[in-house]
């Protein structure tokens, strides 16, 4: 029996929740990320096709993993590297989900929310969903946020799945030149987005070093070359960062 004086926001009734969910989907389609995602995933679908994965495998990977870098790693290394190495590489590439989920989930919580209500928002969290969520969620009452975020995530993920399907089919049907251009899209897109997101010297340097160290390590043929590339180039970049920090502290 609810205390009429309680200010605890109630769960919205099911039909309202569904409406809010749809609002989330609309917000997803109107977001610029929708088109960026489709573009990215068209390239990825083509890559999956060329490497030899099946249409449904590609779709399943988008739904289950929902992370472009992890998926690119999977698609490009699963058939050639040891599974152990693939798992480690994927694990490393997804570290950023920890702070992202930890930052946005609290905004959806209120007394009475069960952990299992947060599982879907947790899984749907990816960079695009998270950025839009951080922007849009504060604009609405807390009891609507979970449904909205789920809609947002579902909308964006659907765009990605469709993009992947389109890319996959296109790679099969396009003439070789256009198919090559489609495949080239993935490295280009990752390069651009990594460059755009690298606001610090550490990010940029780690990336540049990775590009250089990667082929060198691979040529040594010692196995686990992705891991070594990450560790060597990443630690070098981190070392430079520490040196600069230390020097700055000496000066000030």
């Amino acid at each position, binding site marked *: 029996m609810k205390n009429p004086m309680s200010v605890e926001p109630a769960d919205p009734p099911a039909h309202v929740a569904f409406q809010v969910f749809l609002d989330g989907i609309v917000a997803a389609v109107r977001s610029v990320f929708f088109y960026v995602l489709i573009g990215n995933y068209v390239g990825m679908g083509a890559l999956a096709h060329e490497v030899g*994965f*099946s249409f449904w*495998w590609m779709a*399943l*990977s988008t739904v*289950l*993993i929902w*992370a472009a870098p*992890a*998926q690119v790693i*999977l698609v490009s290394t*699963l*058939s050639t590297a*040891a*599974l*152990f190495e*693939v*798992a*480690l590489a*994927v*694990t490393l*590439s*997804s*570290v*950023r*989900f*920890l*702070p*992202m*989920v*930890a930052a946005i*989930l*609290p905004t959806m*919580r209120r007394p009475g929310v069960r*952990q299992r209500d*947060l*599982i879907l928002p*947790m*899984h749907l*969290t990816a960079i695009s969903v998270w950025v839009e969520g951080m922007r849009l969620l504060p604009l609405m009452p807390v009891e609507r946020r979970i449904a909205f975020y789920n809609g947002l995530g579902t909308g964006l993920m659907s765009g990605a799945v469709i993009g992947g399907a389109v890319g996959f089919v296109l790679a099969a049907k396009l003439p070789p030149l256009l198919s090559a251009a489609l495949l080239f899209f993935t490295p280009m897109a990752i390069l651009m987005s990594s460059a755009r997101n690298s606001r610090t010297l550490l990010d940029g340097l780690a990336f540049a070093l990775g590009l250089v160290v990667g082929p060198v390590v691979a040529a040594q043929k010692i196995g686990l070359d992705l891991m070594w590339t990450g560790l060597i180039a990443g630690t070098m970049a981190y070392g430079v960062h520490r040196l600069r920090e230390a020097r700055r502290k000496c000066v000030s």
Partner: protein
Amino acid sequence: MSAALHATLQDIGPVLALILFGFLPNEVWRLVGLMLVHGLDEKSQIIVWVRAVATAMLAGVLAQLILSTSGPLASIPVSVRIGASVLGFAAFLIGKRSVFAGVLTGEAAILLGTYFLGT
């Protein structure tokens, strides 16, 4: 053992590989984020499941080590290896869950078994 470690896509199939080596390592971080937000609940169903899976994987790795046909253990007959493991485990239980007793007994069993029954 190295064969298992260097297992490839062909060995376990693309979908299983997707789930074990794509989905799980990726989702782990989201799950931990959720744990942080909702509290580190040791009894939560997710953690219970993760522990079950990890324990099962560990058991699988142990079984492979014991049964492997390559590496230093290969020269010891399989029956001796299994027998030593069983004896070691029995000693562990009898010695009131003493890891020391179990390891000691298992080692002794395998050494004696190899000496008397091995090639």
